[in-house]
């Protein structure tokens, strides 16, 4: 009932909002670093030049995955303990809206053209398709147990979801709202990266300690990449976050408890090196010019900033409690 009322209020707000619509502002490319902190329930904003915290934004409880809209005027933040995605106004640094999700949202993907947000709902074992305008869950697509990573294809027609407990990656028809194909991958698949040519999907498998490479056409695993940073135990190698450069040449993978980021040459699938970071590193993101890498160290309460050219950490900055993700405004 409360939920319905909330949705009604939100819908009403939308109608009002449409009438008052302001002219779109261009992205400012501030380069500011946004860090979500699961246990201190805030987003910290860090100046990339001075490494000083310039803003501390209180959000709903347990903020995790974050995405900017295309214009970088809004930042969407999944807040696991309040079952919402908070909408932050980037200019004012204020929470200006909330999208209601299923229980405990962690990662999500947005398709602004289709006005949709795709959120995995761990407890319901489904992918919730949220209509951003109406602020309602339009569809729930059944997945394997504990769905986690979500990625939407560039054309918006296909959504990919990992199921942590079922060791599966699902291919979902975005408009139809049903699973088209499944592929068995390594134990506890977590997150995705796609090669820019659209041919491959890389998925981190936390318990198998590897990245599996899925051929998107065949929808089959065609390769695996193993990791072992020097001096670490194989059992601590728990890959979670991964990003790829725009030219599709280099991938960076956070290795969780092994406290390193792996640098991978994408065409040859060879590990080129390891960069030391903090404990339980998960969230990872590249700066716009791809010269800087940001890593959130969940059990170190800090982020590590890395120079990609030299593959060396530049500085670690203390943030809030249990940092989950990092995004950069540019």
């Amino acid at each position: 009932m409360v939920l319905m009322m909330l949705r009604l209020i939100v819908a009403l707000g939308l109608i009002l909002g449409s009438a008052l619509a302001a002219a779109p502002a261009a992205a400012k490319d501030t380069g500011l670093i946004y860090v979500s902190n699961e246990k201190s329930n805030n987003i910290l904003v860090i100046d990339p030049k001075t490494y000083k915290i310039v803003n501390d934004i209180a959000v709903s409880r347990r903020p995790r995955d974050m995405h900017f809209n295309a214009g970088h005027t809004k930042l969407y933040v999944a807040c696991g303990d309040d079952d919402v995605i908070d909408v932050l106004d980037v200019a004012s640094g204020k929470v200006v809206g909330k999208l209601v999700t299923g229980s405990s949202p962690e990662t999500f993907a947005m398709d602004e053209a289709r006005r949709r947000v795709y959120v995995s709902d761990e407890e319901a074992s489904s992918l919730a398709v949220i209509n951003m305008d109406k602020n309602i869950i339009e569809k729930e697509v059944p997945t394997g147990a504990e769905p986690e990573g979500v990625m939407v294809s560039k054309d918006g027609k296909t959504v990919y979801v990992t199921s942590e407990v079922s060791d599966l990656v699902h291919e979902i028809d975005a408009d139809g709202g049903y699973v088209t194909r499944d592929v068995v991958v390594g134990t506890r698949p977590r997150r995705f990266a796609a090669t820019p040519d659209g041919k491959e999907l890389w998925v981190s498998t936390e318990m198998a300690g590897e990245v599996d490479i899925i051929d998107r056409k065949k929808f089959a695993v065609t390769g695996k990449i193993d990791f072992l940073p020097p001096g670490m135990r194989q059992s601590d190698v728990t890959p979670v976050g991964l990003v790829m450069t725009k030219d599709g040449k280099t991938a960076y993978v956070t290795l969780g408890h092994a406290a390193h980021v792996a640098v991978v040459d994408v065409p040859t699938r060879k590990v080129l090196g390891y960069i030391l970071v903090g404990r339980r590193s998960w969230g990872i993101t590249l700066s716009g010019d791809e010269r800087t890498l940001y890593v959130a160290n969940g059990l170190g309460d800090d982020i590590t900033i890395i120079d990609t050219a030299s593959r060396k950490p530049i500085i670690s900055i203390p943030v809030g409690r249990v940092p989950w993700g990092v995004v950069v405004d540019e």
Partner: protein
Amino acid sequence: MSSAAGLGALPRLAALWLLGFTWAAAAAAQEVPAPARPTPAPPQHHMKIVFVQVDGDRRYEPIVASDRIVLKKPEHPFAGAQVGIDDAAPLRRILNTDFALDRIAVKSPADVAPAIKQAADAGTHFFLVDAPTAAYAALAAAMHGRNVLLFNVSEPDDALRRRLCAGEFVHVYPSRAQLMDGLVQYVVSRRWTNLLELQGPSPADAAMAAAFEYSAKKFGAHIVAQQKFEPGTDPRQREHNDPALLSAINRDFDVVFVADSDFDFVRTVPYHLLRPRPVIGSIDLRPVAWHWTWDHNGAPQVNSRFEKKANGRHMAGADWAAWVAVTMIVQAVLHTRSTDFAKDRAFILGNGSFDGDKGLAVSVRPWDHQVRQAVLLAAPYEVVASAPIEGFLHRTNELDTLGDDQPESTCHLDH
């Protein structure tokens, strides 16, 4: 609260939404077209798992204080198995398989073997055995050489892994040796190596103390004194029932270990010792297969699913074992894409590694069919550490620093 916060902000939010079009407009044409919607067929395969428990099993009697205050109400781990079955529901479509769970309750340990034999004769291959030690010898004899896997989900007795040593069993519940090794690794890692041992009168207490002593020797801890306690208030027995007198020894010690499977005397030990020392073993810091406060490795999700299934009850070690046993069976079907028993058995006992939400992947030791796993060291409201503790190394798998490793095991199912 959230509605109020959202209302004032909404006009601006909507303004944003009006401009969000450019993003996907330039979508590249190289995207792979998805195939048409597959038509779901009714499941072709059926996989039945039978859970067997013993009514009146003393391990599940409520533990009450003298004035009838109920301290603990242990329950059969059936709900853990149910969570495993629920987790498999989304796979029904993919595997064309229905997973079903039956529950059989028998009247005594002696009835376990005939009940399982009857179900096996009727075609069931996978059983979750929730029975005390007394049931196992007859069960092993009745099932010898049969096409079954019997998952022990609640009994830590080392003798089942060592003397009985039967290939049809998979011991998902940790052995006493594993549990005590985990506990001792922790105290040794803290350099609390001088230990006082207090042992109760029951055979289970003796088994626990023996495992603890073996672990202490293995990891270089020193038991400075071994005392036997007798629960009671008889003043003539005070040397044996008063924790202060039991701990009044000349040598100092870092920690007191208490083996008290009845959870009776041990409750009077904390804060009643002669010296201010922590208590481990049957109270305060306990080695367990699972704890409801464990919040790493996906544990919060499974704890939450379990509590929903079990009316708010916290997930305990046997529940974890039952959940993992079902998970192992389901994963075997998923990875072999088959409900053929020989294939599934080979996967489970062979290269299969499973996510037990305790960090390191769990798998079955080929020599005694014990499931290798982390041991949680739990205080009442916090998991203090997870063993293997960092620094305890093994040539192949750190989990094999806990319990009977291949060279020292007396069971050699792999030969």
